[in-house]
């Protein structure tokens, strides 16, 4: 039953998305690789759309993948499932959460989780970069000419955000325009 599977897997993704929306990427990547829900190209498209639209990337990706896998009902199930852990945890634990937030035990827990999540996000970034640039290499085995324009856009986007703190939405719009002109 596809809806139960969506419910379980997106609940798990929601439960382990610790440390902001990007922490969802490695979890989602894993499910995509195993289940073949969508292609890695489509995954990149979803991230692009999620960056452009309001709302957390985790929610947007859940809605999109849910729709692809199980139609409108699938998208509702996946979106609900990804939010459900937050809702349950807050409803059940909200009284004790505030009290133990600064507790050394809890802080130790997060001191271990944060760097691990960072490592996972780097590997998800690698997966995404490979998905963007690898098709040129893997199609019928022969290496296609290197796509300098794409590499240039990627390098420029990286520089503008990492160094000059540009708004990602503007960068995506500019890249879209550049794409229409170049490709």
């Amino acid at each position, binding site marked *: 039953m596809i809806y139960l599977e969506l419910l379980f897997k997106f609940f798990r993704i929601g439960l382990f998305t610790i440390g902001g929306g990007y922490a969802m990427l490695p979890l989602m990547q894993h499910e995509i690789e195993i289940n073949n829900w969508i292609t890695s190209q489509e995954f990149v498209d979803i991230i692009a759309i999620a960056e452009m639209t309001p709302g957390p990337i985790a929610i947007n990706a859940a809605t999109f993948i849910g729709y692809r896998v199980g139609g409108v009902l699938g998208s509702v199930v996946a979106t609900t499932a990804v939010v459900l852990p937050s809702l349950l945890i807050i409803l059940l634990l909200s009284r004790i959460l505030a009290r133990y937030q600064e507790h050394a035990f809890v802080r130790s827990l997060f001191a271990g989780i944060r760097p691990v999540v960072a490592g996972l996000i780097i590997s*998800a970034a690698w997966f995404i970069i490979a998905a963007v640039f690898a098709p040129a290499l893997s199609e019928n085995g022969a290496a296609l000419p290197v796509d300098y324009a794409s590499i240039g856009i990627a390098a420029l986007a990286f520089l503008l955000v990492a160094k000059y703190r540009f708004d990602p939405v503007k960068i995506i719009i500019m890249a879209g325009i550049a794409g229409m002109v170049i490709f």
Partner: protein
Amino acid sequence: MLPMIEKEVVERRGWASAEEIMDIFALSQSLPGAIAINSSIFLGYRLAGVTGAVVAAAGVVMPSLLIILGIAVFFTSLKENRAVSAAFTGIRAAVAGLIAAAALRITRASCRSWIAFALALLSLLINLFTDIHAVWVILCGGLIGIVIHYYLPGRVKLRKSGDEKP
């Protein structure tokens, strides 16, 4: 999204004080899920109990759901269009750059000691070269954090959690 929540809740509605909302944001950050969603659920719960929490969750997710659903429905046919497909070739390249920048930012924020750096490297290698699910990697990270920082004698002192925010 957080500044919008703050403005609406503190300035316009008076549902919480500026300090309360900061506490809620801080707490939301250390819970699973998106910070904006968690904060909304917290506020809903505080204002109107379980019903409030559920309504707030539904309300904050609904716009994303509708927008993305709309895009998802038309996306396949849109992609047939040459201009759109060319635009997305450019956008995909930009996303690669954006994600790399995000990974760098998050790594910088969360790897401030050699232990943290080693943990990040280890989890990177595990995720790249094995099929171990990310969930197990995260759980092990938490366990190692507890052992190193809480149980080991002469344990490594942690800074105030406020300093470690990504």
